[in-house]
C-alpha cells in the first residue's frame, strides 16, 4: 500500500468512491494538455483524483505564477535594509533599534464579486495571517478597492458589503485601518477589486520562516476545523467570471475574526517561545499549498494523514480536506516532544492543535487517509514542474489610438463648476463614509489616520514611526502602462514623503485581465517595467506582492490596476506633517513643475467625458529630489502641511488642503495667485493637468525663506502661490485673467457628502438587518 520512492516512481490508490480521472475531469480541473502531460510523465501513471486536485491547486495561476514569474523577476528586490524579500508570506524590512516591519498585500477579487461581505472579510483575514505567520504583530491594515459606478444598484450593494466586511473583520481583531483608496470606473462593474494590505511589527530576532525542517518532526493543524468551504478557491480565482462561474462557485468562506484574534495571539506566543520550527497559514488552496510549500522550502518530504484533520462535517474525503479553504487555520511544524507544550499554549487561547502528519526524508509529498495512500508526488517537482508561460504581449490598436486622441472640447468650459464637479466625483471625493466604518485608532499608536496622504503609526516605546499607503491611478496605466506604472510608485512615494517619512519598500498587487490576451499581457509587462524602474530610482525594493489575473466579466477586462503598497520610516514621529492647511496667514507654495499634461486627467474624464491622451511622463530623478526635500523640510520643522497633487490636479489639491481634515470644524480658505505661474498654459491645463511630481505645502511666514533655500539646495522648483485664509473663508484663485471664488463651506459639503449622498439609497444593503 505505501508508496515507494525509487527515482521518482510513486504509488497511490484512489480513495473509495472517487471518480476516475478522465479527460473531462482533467479539463474541469483547469489543467491543459501540456500540464497534464507533465503530470503523467512525472508520476509514470494516471494520477488519482486527489492528486489531480493537488496539481490543479498548485498549478493554478494563483499559486504557481505561471504567467507572471519571468516578469516579476525583473523587480529590484535587494537592499541593505531588506531582511526578507519575495518568497515568504510577507516581506520584511529593517527598522531602527532591532525592530523590523513585515508587510504584504493580497487580492480577494473573485470571492468579493460573489459575496462582498464575506469575500472582503476573509481577504483581510488572509492578509493578517500572512503577516503574523512571520512572527510580526499586525499593527495596520490598508485596503484598495474598485467598483463600477455608484448609480448602478448592484455596485452600491457590492461597495457597501465590501466596506462592511473589511471593517468588521479588522475592527474585531483590533488592527487599525490607516489608509486605503477607492476608485470607480465602468470596467469594474461585475468584477470589483478588493486588495488588502497588512503591516506588522516584529523584533528582527523573532523572524520565522515558513519552512518544514527536521525529519521526524510533526505537522500540526492549529485553529479552526476544516469544512467544505471554498474548495477550488485558487482555481476559481484563476479563471474569468462568467455565467458559468455561478455554478462552479465554491462554497462561500465565512470569516470568524474572533478565532483569528485567538490564532494571532497563540501563533505569536508559539513563535516567540521558540516551541516551533516553522509555521504557515492555510490560505489559497488550504492545506495543500501550505504543506507543499513548507516541504519544498525545507527540502524535505511530508506525509499527511487527512483522517486526522479535525473536520466540521462528517464524511469529508481527502480531496475535500486537502483543498478546503476554511479560514483561520495554521500549519505548524515542531519537534515531537514539544507537542504537549504547543497544545497547552493553544488551549489557553481556546484553540485546538492536532498532529496531522510528519516530515519525511524521501522528498515525497504523501497523503494518507485511514492507512490508504491517496497521493504520492515528488514534492520538489510538484512545485517546480509547473510550466511557465510567456504569452505574447502586443498593444492593441485602439489603445494606441486613444493616446493620440484629443477630447471634443466644449467652447467655454466652466472652470468654476469643474472644481465642484470634480470634488463631487466619488473617486476624488472624501472617503470618510468608508473609513469611519474602520477602527483607525485601536492600538493607540495612530499618529496620522485616514483622510490624508499616508497613515503613520508610532512603533510603541520608541520615537519613530512608519508611514503606510496604497495607491494606483488606473486611468494613467490604461493609457500608457509603462509611464502609468512609474506614476503609481511615484505617487505612493510622494504620499509617504509628504508626511516626512523616507520611502523604504514596496509590496504590489497586480490586478489585470486574462494574460492569455496579448493586449492584457502587454499592459502587465509594461506596467511591471514601470514599477521596476521607479522602485530602482527610489531605492524601494519590492519585497513581495500578489498577481491577480483573469479579472474579466462579460463586459471585458478591467482597467489594469497595479496597486502599490509602500512603507516608509519617519525617524521622529513629532516631525510628522499633516495634509491640510493648519493656520491662517501661512504661506502656500507649489513644489515641482506643471507642464499642463491633461492626458488621463479626471478633468477630461468627468467634464469632457473623455479618457485619452498622453499619460504625463514621470521624471524619476525629479520625484526623488522632491521626496528628499519634503523629508528634510519636515525634519527641520519648516512645513506646516504638505499634500500631493494627484487625481484632479493642482486645483483639487489646493481645495482639499483648504477644505480641511475630516474632523476640522470648518475649512480655512486660501488666497492663491497663479497669474505668473506656468506661463503660456491654458488655465484649464494649469488647474487640472495631472503632471506628477507636484506637492502643495504651507509654511509659517517666518520659515518660508529657509524652506525656499532648502528647495534650491534640492533643485526642486518652489513657487510662492498665496496665503492660507481665515476660518470658513473663501478659496480665492487668480489664473490668467480670471478670478474665481468658492466658499470653503460649500466645497466642504460637496466633498464630504458626495459618497454618503449616493449611498443613501435604502436598497443598498441586502443584509441591512444583519
Amino acid at each position, binding site marked *: 500500500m505505501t508508496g515507494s520512492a525509487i527515482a521518482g516512481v510513486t504509488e497511490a490508490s484512489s480513495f473509495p468512491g472517487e471518480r476516475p480521472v478522465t479527460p473531462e475531469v482533467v479539463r474541469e480541473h483547469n489543467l491543459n494538455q501540456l500540464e497534464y502531460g507533465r503530470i503523467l510523465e512525472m508520476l509514470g501513471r494516471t494520477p488519482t483524483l486527489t492528486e489531480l486536485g493537488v496539481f490543479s491547486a498548485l498549478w493554478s495561476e494563483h499559486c504557481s505564477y505561471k504567467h507572471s514569474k519571468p516578469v516579476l523577476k525583473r523587480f529590484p528586490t535587494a537592499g541593505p535594509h531588506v531582511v526578507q524579500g519575495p518568497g515568504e508570506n510577507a516581506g520584511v524590512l529593517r527598522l531602527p533599534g532591532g525592530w523590523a516591519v513585515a508587510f504584504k498585500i493580497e487580492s480577494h477579487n473573485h470571492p468579493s464579486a460573489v459575496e462582498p461581505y464575506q469575500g472582503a472579510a476573509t481577504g483581510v483575514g488572509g492578509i493578517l495571517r500572512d503577516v503574523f505567520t512571520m512572527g510580526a504583530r499586525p499593527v495596520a491594515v490598508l485596503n484598495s478597492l474598485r467598483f463600477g459606478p455608484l448609480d448602478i444598484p448592484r455596485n452600491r450593494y457590492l461597495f457597501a458589503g465590501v466596506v462592511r466586511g473589511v471593517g468588521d473583520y479588522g475592527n474585531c481583531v*483590533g488592527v487599525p485601518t490607516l489608509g486605503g483608496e477607492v476608485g470607480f470606473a465602468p470596467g469594474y462593474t461585475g468584477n470589483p477589486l478588493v486588495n488588502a494590505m497588512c503591516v506588522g511589527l516584529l523584533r528582527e530576532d523573532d523572524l520565522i520562516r515558513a519552512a518544514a525542517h527536521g525529519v521526524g518532526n510533526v505537522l500540526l493543524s492549529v485553529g479552526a476545523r476544516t469544512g467544505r468551504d471554498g474548495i477550488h478557491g485558487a482555481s476559481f480565482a484563476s479563471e474569468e467570471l462568467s455565467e458559468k462561474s455561478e455554478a462552479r462557485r465554491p462554497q462561500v468562506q465565512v470569516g*470568524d475574526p*474572533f478565532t483569528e484574534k485567538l490564532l494571532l495571539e497563540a501563533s505569536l506566543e508559539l513563535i516567540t517561545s521558540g516551541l516551533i520550527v516553522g509555521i504557515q497559514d492555510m490560505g489559497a488552496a488550504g492545506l495543500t499549498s501550505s504543506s507543499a510549500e513548507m516541504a519544498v522550502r525545507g527540502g524535505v518530504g511530508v506525509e499527511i494523514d487527512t483522517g486526522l484533520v479535525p473536520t466540521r462535517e462528517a464524511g469529508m474525503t481527502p480531496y475535500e480536506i486537502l483543498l478546503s479553504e476554511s479560514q483561520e487555520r495554521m500549519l505548524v511544524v515542531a519537534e515531537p516532544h514539544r507537542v504537549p507544550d504547543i497544545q497547552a499554549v493553544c488551549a489557553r487561547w481556546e484553540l485546538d492543535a492536532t498532529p496531522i502528519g510528519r516530515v519525511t526524508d524521501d522528498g515525497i509529498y504523501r497523503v494518507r487517509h485511514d492507512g490508504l495512500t491517496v497521493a504520492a508526488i515528488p514534492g520538489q517537482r510538484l512545485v517546480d514542474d509547473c510550466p511557465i508561460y510567456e504569452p505574447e504581449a502586443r498593444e492593441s490598436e485602439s489603445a494606441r489610438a486613444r493616446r493620440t486622441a484629443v477630447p471634443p472640447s466644449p467652447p467655454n468650459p466652466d472652470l468654476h463648476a469643474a472644481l465642484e464637479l470634480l470634488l463631487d466625483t466619488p473617486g476624488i471625493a472624501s472617503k470618510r463614509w468608508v473609513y469611519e466604518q*474602520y477602527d483607525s485608532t485601536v492600538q493607540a499608536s495612530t499618529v496620522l489616520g485616514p483622510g490624508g496622504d499616508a497613515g503613520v503609526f508610532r512603533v510603541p516605546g520608541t520615537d519613530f514611526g512608519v508611514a503606510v499607503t496604497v495607491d494606483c491611478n488606473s486611468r494613467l496605466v490604461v493609457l500608457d502602462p509603462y509611464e502609468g506604472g512609474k506614476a503609481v510608485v511615484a505617487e505612493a512615494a510622494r504620499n509617504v514623503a509628504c508626511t516626512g517619512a523616507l520611502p523604504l519598500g514596496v509590496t504590489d498587487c497586480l490586478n489585470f485581465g486574462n494574460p492569455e490576451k496579448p493586449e492584457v499581457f502587454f499592459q502587465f509587462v509594461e506596467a511591471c517595467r514601470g514599477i521596476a524602474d521607479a522602485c530602482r530610482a527610489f531605492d524601494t525594493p519590492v519585497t513581495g506582492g500578489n498577481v491577480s489575473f483573469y479579472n474579466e466579466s462579460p463586459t471585458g477586462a478591467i482597467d489594469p490596476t497595479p496597486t502599490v503598497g509602500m512603507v516608509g520610516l519617519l525617524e521622529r514621529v513629532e516631525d510628522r506633517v499633516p495634509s491640510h492647511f493648519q493656520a491662517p496667514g501661512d504661506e502656500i507654495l507649489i513644489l515641482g513643475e506643471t507642464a499642463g499634461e491633461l492626458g488621463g486627467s479626471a478633468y477630461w474624464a468627468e467634464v469632457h467625458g473623455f479618457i485619452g491622451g498622453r499619460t504625463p511622463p514621470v521624471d524619476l530623478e525629479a520625484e526623488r529630489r522632491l521626496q528628499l526635500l519634503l523629508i528634510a523640510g519636515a525634519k527641520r520643522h519648516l512645513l506646516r502641511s504638505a499634500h500631493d497633487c494627484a487625481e484632479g490636479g493642482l486645483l483639487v489639491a489646493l481645495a482639499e488642503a483648504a477644505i480641511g481634515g475630516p474632523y476640522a470644524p470648518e475649512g480655512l480658505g486660501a488666497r492663491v495667485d497663479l497669474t505668473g505661474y506656468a506661463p503660456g498654459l491654458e488655465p484649464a491645463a494649469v488647474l487640472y493637468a495631472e503632471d506628477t511630481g507636484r506637492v502643495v505645502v504651507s509654511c509659517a511666514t517666518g520659515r518660508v525663506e529657509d524652506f525656499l533655500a532648502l528647495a534650491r539646495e534640492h533643485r526642486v522648483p518652489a513657487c510662492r502661490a498665496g496665503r492660507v485664509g481665515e476660518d470658513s473663508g473663501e478659496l480665492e484663485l487668480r489664473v490668467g485673467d480670471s478670478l474665481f471664488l468658492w466658499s470653503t463651506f460649500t466645497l466642504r459639503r460637496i466633498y464630504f457628502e458626495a459618497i454618503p449622498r449616493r449611498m443613501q439609497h435604502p436598497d443598498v444593503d441586502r443584509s441591512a438587518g444583519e
Partner: protein
Amino acid sequence: MLDVAVVRFPGSNCDFDALRAAERVGANGYFVWHRENHLRGADVVLLPGGFSYGDYLRSGAIARFSPVMQAGRRHAEAGGPVLGICNGFQILCEAHLLPGALMRNAGLTFVSKPVDVIVERADTPFTSAYEANERLRLPVAHGDGRFVATDDTLRELEAESRVVLRYVAASEASPYQPNPNGSANHIAGICNPAGNVVGIMPHPERAADPLLGLGDGAGFFTSFSKATVR
C-alpha cells in the same frame, strides 16, 4: 504603588492600550486572564475595549459569565473603582453592574471618529482630574454604542446625576451630528449610585498621549493614580 488589573477576555483588543495608559501614570498595571477568579489585590479594575467572544449574540453577553467577573463584582460591591471602556461598558451593563444596555448604533454602521463630550461628573475615581462640565475630544470606535434604558431608569440616572459623559456638538455652528450612535439623552457614559463603577463608550486610553494628536483622555488615568489607595 497603585495596582491596576486589566482584565483580558478572549477577543479583548484594547488590553495593551489600557495597560500602557495606566503605566504612563505610574501605576503597576498587569493583565488578569478572564478565567482567573481573583484580581490579585487590585486597587483599580479596568475592563478594556474589544470584541469579547467576537461580540457574538450581544456585545458583552458571554463575557459577563467569565469567572473573573465574580471577583470584579466583589471588588465593585466593596467600593473599589471599576472602569469599563467600550466593550467593558457593554460587559458591565450585561452583568447588571450598570443599568441599561448598549444596542446597535442607530446608523447601523460601525462608527470610528473623534467626538466631543462633556464631563458631567467630576467626582468619580476616573474623572476627578477634570473640571465639572469640561469639554473633551475623545475617539469612539464601536458598532453597538446606543445606550438604551427604560424611562424609569433614564429618569433615575438624570435625577441622581449619574451621567458621567454626554455627547455634545463641537460648536454651535458644527455641521456634525453630536451623538454618534443615537444614545438616549446623548449619554456616553454612566456610573453606579456609589460612583465607583463607571462605563463609557469613548476611548480615553487612545487619547492619553499628546503625540498622537489627542491628549484629553489622560485625566481618566491621572484621576485614579491620585486617588487615595484604600
